[in-house]
């Protein structure tokens, strides 16, 4: 292990589907947040940022020492260029730090109309070798390349070592089953263009499989190709040592709770690795993994970092492995230090006596047991079953507005 590598922390890059999630990501420790506007981004349904929102996200992020990357990563058709130059210029004025782009022509425009913003080559371009990165650097002066998720750990090592620009690698979240940008299943099945933000995730549907004219699947063994999500906790140190500049979490369509949980989990992991020169005992690493997985409700694998594999990375039984998670209990709305009582806004059901974990930005998670619940009329309750209700709970330590409350599992502590 090259301990010198761990003298500098890589960037933790988090997703945000709206302004609230962008701020949450920054508060919980993201070094940078990526987000998109509704018009030029690949996840059109997760890109709700107006220019005013992006400006506010930049202001908030910069105030906290973080960066904002904006996705302009659709594969553009002719009509998609309308207003693009003005949009790029405006993003620069706003102070966006980097643009994530998948089209050479759009990269050229970005170089002209937003020259102060870095250009990051999107994973949609599926860069899988250093020569491709060098070609894009030589011709378009890109600043960073987001590697294809199909790269193995050894691929990442070699590309990062030989690339003339920084590399960014995914560490967590959803994975396309196919090479990003090269799948038109959604186009065919629903006429929704995957490369322009309309992916219907047809890879997660069921298919009958035939060998010639004979069906070889049965109703109980239909063909599926939905990918498990990525969780690279065990590969983080190796990716860091390889020199990867940025660790990216996927999930612009995920909830605020997910963003807080996953970002917080990886923040703690990276800080721990930093303090210990990249070496953590297996038990400690496993504790980090458990912590991160509390925010995850889909089956995970370690992606192609563990090699090219089949069944291991697929949700072969789509009806299993994707439990709905009811652990998010609510958020803190207010705290009164005199009465040691917080006002919370509820989400999922909980009972008196349950253990609750508090996620506060920049702090270790803390646990308390619910000893008292009161409703808005001051009446004592034994259970909470209604979402979006304001309740008052006794809490034995100070909490802050927007802290996240989640169910604590006894075996975690």
């Amino acid at each position, binding site marked *: 292990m090259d301990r010198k590598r761990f003298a500098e922390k890589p960037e933790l890059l988090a997703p945000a589907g709206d302004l609230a999630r962008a701020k949450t990501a920054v508060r919980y420790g993201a070094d940078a947040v990526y987000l998109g506007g509704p018009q030029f981004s690949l996840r059109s349904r997760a890109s709700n940022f107006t220019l005013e929102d992006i400006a506010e996200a930049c202001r908030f992020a910069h105030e906290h020492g973080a960066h904002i990357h904006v996705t302009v990563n659709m594969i553009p058709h002719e009509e998609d260029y309308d207003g693009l130059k003005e949009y790029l210029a405006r993003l620069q004025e706003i102070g966006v730090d980097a643009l994530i782009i998948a089209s050479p*022509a759009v990269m050229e425009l970005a170089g002209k109309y937003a020259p102060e913003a870095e250009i990051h080559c999107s994973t949609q371009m599926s860069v899988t070798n250093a020569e491709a990165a060098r070609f894009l650097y030589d011709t378009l002066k890109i600043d960073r390349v987001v590697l294809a998720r199909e790269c193995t750990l050894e691929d990442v090592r070699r590309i990062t070592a030989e690339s003339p620009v920084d590399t960014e690698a995914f560490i967590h979240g959803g994975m396309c089953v196919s090479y990003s940008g*090269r799948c038109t299943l959604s186009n065919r099945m629903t006429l929704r263009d995957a490369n322009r933000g309309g992916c219907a995730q047809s890879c997660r549907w069921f298919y009958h499989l035939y060998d*010639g004219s004979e069906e070889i699947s049965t109703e109980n063994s239909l063909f599926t190709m939905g990918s498990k999500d990525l969780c690279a906790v065990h590969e983080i140190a190796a990716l860091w040592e390889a020199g990867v500049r940025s660790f990216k979490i996927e999930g612009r369509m995920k909830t605020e709770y997910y963003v807080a949980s996953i970002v917080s989990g990886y923040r703690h992991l990276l800080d721990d690795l930093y303090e210990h020169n990249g070496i953590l005992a297996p038990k400690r690493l496993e504790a980090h993994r458990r912590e991160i997985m509390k925010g995850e409700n889909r089956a995970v694998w370690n992606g192609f970092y563990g090699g090219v594999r089949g069944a291991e990375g697929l949700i072969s039984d789509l009806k299993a492995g994707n439990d709905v998670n009811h652990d998010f209990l609510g958020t803190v709305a207010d705290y009164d230090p005199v009465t040691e009582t917080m006002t919370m806004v509820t989400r999922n059901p909980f009972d008196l006596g349950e253990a609750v974990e508090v996620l506060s930005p920049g702090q270790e998670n803390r646990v308390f047991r619910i000893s008292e619940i009161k409703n808005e009329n001051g009446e004592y309750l034994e259970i909470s079953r209604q979402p979006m209700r304001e309740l008052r709970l006794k809490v034995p330590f100070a909490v802050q507005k927007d802290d996240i409350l989640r169910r604590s599992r006894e075996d975690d502590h």
Partner: protein
Amino acid sequence: MTVLCSSVNSPEEAVRMLAAGADEAVLAVRGCCFSALREQEPEQLKDIPAFSVLLNRLFFPSESEKIEKTLAALKEMAGLRYIYFSDPAVVPAAAQAGMKEKLIYRPETLLTSRADARWWQNRGIHGVSVSPLLTEQEVRDILPAARCELTMHGHLMMTVTRRPLLSAWAAYRHRDLDMKQKKFLLREEKRQEHMPVFENDAGTMIFTDFIQESFGYVEEFAGADRFYIDGTFLTADLLADTVTVYRQVMTGTAAETAAAGYMEKWGDMPFSTGYYGQKTIR
């Protein structure tokens, strides 16, 4: 004059398609292609009078030397016309080999605008292969921007993954599948159409259930540099008839007239005008 080319599954098919009216046959080089059922060693191509090759895989670091080796093996072949690629790493390698002007950028889905077509053309390559996801109007718009190839006919590649999906299904279900058969089909649970799927050392490829058919667009798309027929899942007889009809239409026969006999013979095939007549949405 627009070039008519057809991908084929063997050197024998190449000779037949050239006789049927194709200007070039397109073949896959072993270990370098995503999209072809059958791959050839470079030396198997040397006697074909006019051919192009598919070097359209994304190459990982351990495979990079395949690019140089393949280019070196092809360089002196008299019949070589063009080299299809999708990995940008092929450009500097081809430049090094003095073959850059033979390159055609064919990324399947990524070439959808005039500006991108021009950008690639300006890299000093021969031309670009336009995404078949464009509508008729979008094709008309993009044609003047660069030397453009249009995919006119055949099953379209719909998705490509590095994962061995068929093997994964078989392993999970404890079944044996003979991957060499390459006759596998998928049918979405709620639909009737069958989509060809195959697996090789690069991963798994799934193609459209429909066969793109564009006889009626030949005249309208006359400004194209090349017309591409994907013969991957077409029988040699069907492919030869297809090539002949396109040649007839390209030399002045009305599409309806030229295709009448063809449609009578092959009309039960799942032909469609694909996305030329059907716009996708976001």
